[in-house]
């Protein structure tokens, strides 16, 4: 199940665990990323919490936790090479895996068609 947030994140949900990243649209808007800070495995966040930070040449931006949950895996490849987020934002540029506190919460998020309508 692929879901999207208004904060331009995508979630690929399998067995109650969401792989989370930023959308192609968000990566284009941010421009060349030079630094990514990821949460620690085991950290828990509420929906809307500051889970990660991305920095372009010009500015820093927060990546919010899309739903309540616990971080169970992080993608160290993007901290080593932040440009992966620009080159493959919805694949190899994923940020973290989130064990959802309540899998049904995902129902409230947008599907791909709704997200495409949002970003035009």
């Amino acid at each position, binding site marked *: 199940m692929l879901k999207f947030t208004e904060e331009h994140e995508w979630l690929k949900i399998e067995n109650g665990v969401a792989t989370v990243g930023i959308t192609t649209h968000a990566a284009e808007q941010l*421009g*060349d990323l*030079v*630094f990514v*800070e990821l949460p620690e495995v085991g950290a828990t966040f509420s929906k809307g919490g500051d889970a990660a930070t991305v*920095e*372009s*040449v010009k*500015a820093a931006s927060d990546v919010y936790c899309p739903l309540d949950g616990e971080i169970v895996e992080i993608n160290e490849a993007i901290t080593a090479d932040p440009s992966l987020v620009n080159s493959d934002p919805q694949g190899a540029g994923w940020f973290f895996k989130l064990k959802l506190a309540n899998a049904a919460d995902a129902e409230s998020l947008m599907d791909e068609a709704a997200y495409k309508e949002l970003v035009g």
Partner: protein
Amino acid sequence: MDGSSELKKTPLHALNVSLGGRMVPFAGYDMPVQYPAGVMKEHLHTRAAAGLFDVSHMGQVTVRARSGDNTDAARALETLVPVDIVGLAEGRQRYALFTNDEGGIRDDLMIANRGDHFYVVVNAACKDADFAYMQEKIGDICELTLHDDRALVALQGPHAEAVLAELWGDVSAMRFMDVRACDLHDAHCIVSRSGYTGEDGFEISIPADLAETVCRRLLDHPDVLPIGLGARDSLRLEAGLCLYGNDIDTVTTPVEAGLEWAIQKVRRTGGERAGGFPGAGVILDQLENGAARRRVGLRAEGRAPVRADAVLATDPEGQDIVGTVTSGGFGPTIDGPVAMGYVAGKATAPGTHLYAGVRGKFLPVTVVAMPFVKNTFKR
């Protein structure tokens, strides 16, 4: 509020949009922050080849003595800046500062001697205030004209001379801070060998109606890419150059900012025309005795950029605060974070280890000499 309908457009706005510029509001203008190449490539391309910047939002002012004697205009300008203008030769340009009565900086600017008048370039955000201030202070002696009828572009980078030489062969005779009039593609232009990137290059004032034609000719050259405000900022930061409003403002003095080099001996204590500019008491005293704080360069030890407003401490707990970052970001040529900021006298020595507050953590940074990237001016 959207406000985009109220934004002003430069004479190159249509060209900037047609080149794919991502337009943002800046100093009241709709300006390109980047083009499709992106900030990183634009920055590196400028250092490797040549970049073309639209800086038409800046204020171009001519200052002409009502007496017809250009020395009268020079003397009038010297009442506003701590800089030797009387001694500025025809065809030469100098960096200058409008100071205030407290020794702070109202704006930084360029002043060129054009023989029968002076040509001044001020910051976009300050230009209306600067023009009104100049009118008030020296309007009785000088006729002042703000040239919204001219565009201003910067052509910067190691290939800039070769690119411009294709339109104007005499360009190679110019050296850093020379200013010449010339015809580029039948447009009567004013060219200075200067810029805001640390690279060799030129700033070119062009009549507004011919600006797009001249720029398209420059962009036809395979070595030239259009460059947006994003890379303009990262280039000037690596070059250690101040951004007015960030690194210098009405409460920073030229000495605190490390801009003593802009104040020639003739305007200092003991000089033939010492003082006579706003804030002279404070500034001349600081030139003799130093200032309590100073602008320094900072390199972070990690990869996380340290940005403006981060506090600087001598200890990793952030207990002993000694300063603040005024500009910071990622330097694509350095391939790492670079920043500048003000620190107390005890922390100004290169090699001093400090800690910058970033998102609740204190990250190690080191005070370093600037520029971060060696400049390549043709002196």
